[in-house]
């Protein structure tokens, strides 16, 4: 097992290395930080040349890449091209907001999808199952911005107009004296993310539960006289949870990337919005740092998931 993990970690380093090269080359081709200065009469040709030099953009691409990589290896992600702040400071400032939003969303997603998935699988083709299936297809097929805007329209704008208690739609400022207000701000963005994510989770759980329900060991367990509940929770669910754990592992890793669209719609000051804003400005160091963090977390998360398989299904042996 430990040999397996070490081998996977070495592979992970290689994979992340390749990802950085690809993102660097493609990102640099798509976004030129100097574009912001092209059409400003206040900035002379000398200024442009000086800025280009100071940002290191006059160096050949491989040199730029290596100097960036050299910094990263030493834990220095450099300074933002636009704000001149340390990239790590900018990310650290946004990280708490993102983590709170994403963790809350993940918890509600898991709860909702466990309940809905199990209900749907144990009541196959019932009205409740059909309803859940319909709802998951809606969640699957709707773009996140549409769900977000619809929720704002109904619970923010509509409820206010109808004189009902309404939910805030914008960003929240933490106030020790008024945590309730802050929680209220979380509801709509968390609901948006949950509706989208829970759709997938529910479908996976339902279909894998249905799969295992017809297997021999379930029949054996039932014939031993075990209660339905024990069969479900102890035998069926454990084996049915592999796909569930796979996407969960990926989503936990993606926590650090935030939710680009949801954060933007709800003015949530998180990493996703930071990424969007800074990539619009061609702010390479910030984009690269966020991409690197997210891809590292995803690769590591996948290793953790693979290891977790061995506990969930003893037939899987990692070597």
């Amino acid at each position: 097992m430990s040999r397996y993990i070490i081998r996977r970690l070495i592979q992970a380093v290689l994979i992340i290395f390749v990802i950085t090269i690809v993102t660097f080359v493609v990102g640099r081709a798509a976004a030129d930080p100097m574009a912001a200065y092209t059409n400003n009469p206040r900035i002379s040709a000398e200024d442009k040349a000086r800025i280009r030099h100071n940002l290191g953009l006059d160096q050949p691409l491989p040199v730029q890449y290596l100097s960036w990589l050299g910094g990263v290896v030493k834990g220095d992600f450099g300074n933002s091209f636009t704000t001149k702040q340390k990239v790590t400071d900018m990310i650290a400032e946004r990280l708490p907001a993102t983590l709170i939003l994403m963790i809350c969303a993940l918890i509600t997603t898991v709860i909702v999808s466990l309940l809905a998935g199990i209900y749907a699988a144990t009541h196959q083709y019932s009205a409740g199952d059909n309803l859940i299936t319909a709802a998951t297809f809606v969640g699957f097929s709707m773009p996140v911005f549409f769900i977000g805007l619809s929720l704002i329209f109904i619970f923010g704008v509509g409820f206010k107009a109808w004189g009902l208690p309404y939910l805030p739609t914008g960003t929240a400022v933490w106030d020790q004296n008024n945590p309730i207000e802050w929680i209220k701000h979380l509801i709509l963005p968390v609901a948006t993310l949950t509706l989208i994510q829970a759709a997938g989770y529910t479908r996976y759980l339902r279909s894998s539960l249905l799969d295992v329900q017809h297997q021999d060991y379930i029949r054996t367990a039932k014939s031993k006289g075990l209660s339905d509940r024990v069969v479900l929770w102890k035998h069926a669910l454990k084996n049915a949870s592999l796909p569930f754990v796979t996407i969960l592992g990926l989503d936990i890793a993606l926590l650090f990337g935030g939710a680009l669209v949801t954060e933007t719609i709800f003015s949530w000051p998180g990493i996703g919005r930071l990424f969007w804003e800074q990539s619009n400005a061609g702010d390479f160091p910030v984009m690269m740092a966020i991409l690197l963090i997210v891809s590292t977390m995803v690769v590591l998360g996948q290793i953790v998931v693979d290891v977790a398989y061995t506990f969930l299904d003893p037939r899987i042996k990692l070597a």
Partner: protein
Amino acid sequence: MKSVHVKRYLILASIAMVALLIAACAPAAAPTAAPATQAPAVQPTAAPQPSSAPQATTAPQATTAPQATTAPAATEAPTAAPAAGGGVANIAFYQEPNSLSLYFSNQTFAGWAQAIYNRGLWAYDDKSQPSLELAAEFPTTENGGVSADGLTITYKLKPDLKWSDGEPFTSKDIKFTWEAIMNDKNTGIVSRDGYDKIESITTPDDQTAVVKFKELYVPWQLLFNNPAGGGFMPEHLLGTKDTLDGDEFFRMPIGTGPFKVTEWKGGDHITFVANENYWRGKPKLDGVTVKIVPSRDAGNAGLAAGDVDLVADEIEASIPDLDALMPKAHAQSVPSQSFEHYFFNLDDGKYGAAGNPIFLNDTVRKAYIMCINRDTIAERLLFGKSKVISNLWPNSQYDNTDLKPYAYDPDAANKMLDDAGFAKGDDGVRTMDVNGKKVRFSFNHETTTGNQLRADVQVLATANLGGCGYEMLPQNYPSATLFGTFAQNGPLASGKYETGGYTTSFSPDPDPSDNFKCSGIPTADKPEGSNWYRLCDAELEKLSIDQAKEADPAKRTDMIKEMQKIMYDKAYVAPLYNRLNTIGLSSRLQGINQSPTQADAYWNIYDWTVSQ
């Protein structure tokens, strides 16, 4: 195990794909073509049009321009009365300032945020006149502020000025600011334009700074300034630092303005509270909160909900929607000095990126202008709040008002084109013989996506031009792509376009930079040039160079006007209308008097009030 492997690789492949996709989709930053993306400094201009004067296409105003270096009517705004009411104004910015110091930023929003907490020598008021801030007087030749040779400018400061931390503000801070701008260790400094022409700054006493230039620098009054008020950097806090790059100071800077910064939460808000050390005394408001919103629409929703009092940088097309919020909120617009224009790629191939050869013909360009119904644009699409313009220096003292915009006259234009032998084909599109080949009057027109007014104008122009035998094919890009650099194959910068359109301005200072110089045409060897028209006209080039060396403001103005006449006669560009500075404003917030310059609303923020 096998399936796990497959799954793993599938997942990794997906990650790589997503990473690629994200990276590929990320556009570069560019000046959006809205009037508010750049932050040039301002020169006072005379006779701004009243906002309710849409008839100006026929009746040019006589300019009674005070000449910049001789006698600008610097106004000292009335000292704020003792704070009445207090309260906090909430301003929505849809772009987060990337710095609170314009020396380190290229963003208009940064300039506006700076105007809230920091002030320079003067701001520019709603008449585009200098409104004195830290300066005791505006330097002129009469008061000895400008030397006879124009090479020495003397700034006189008000007595007892203080930074918001209570420390005295002196002329040494001016000298320090210049040194910081020129210090190579401060790699984040954006523009040194003009500062690099300064030979020395001496400070004979705390209230006097004498600036000596190496060579004549005509737009000197732009230095240490931005339209909304400029500002300096405090020597007592920054003087000992090796470099200012990424310094924490700029997250929570002190200033000399009406408010002081107390909190900046990235992506969320910036909080300002009244500065009791401001030279006018405490402003009327207790504070200002800048809310960072993801879009103008989000700002407008806040305006409708009563959470926001002012939405910065609205577009003209939003005016009806904003006015529909009456009496709660409305749009406030003033004609600005920036202009929307259409233009042609005039490269005949000599500079490596030839445009459509039909536009090398004077008649074709002139008829093009005459075929676009610009009156309809001003009256219908701009609600009569703007006017058709004849040149690129509208609404300023440099506006050559002798030039009347070409009238909308498709019949005359068609006749001109028929007479020149460019007959319409069966498809209604004209053709021209170029080196024995028939070239159709068919061309792409490239502008930005995402601006409703611009899209409407393009539709109208396409239809109008179609009636004259031109086939205009809209081909639009996000502004980041349209304004991409030469190296990025940005269509305008690299000359890979036929006709285009966007907004810019040669105001505040009228210097058009190298926009009309042959040497300013971007090529592979000189990709930084800003002559995107790829226009090379010897006379224009000479005037362009000479005006920047002319110390006499009257003569300089004449040269700028002469440039306009050449461009007008030859129809080198098609000026459309001057843009409006527009904000969304709640009825709760009072005292806003927008400036036609980039100062926009913030120059008199000390005078704003909110009703409780």
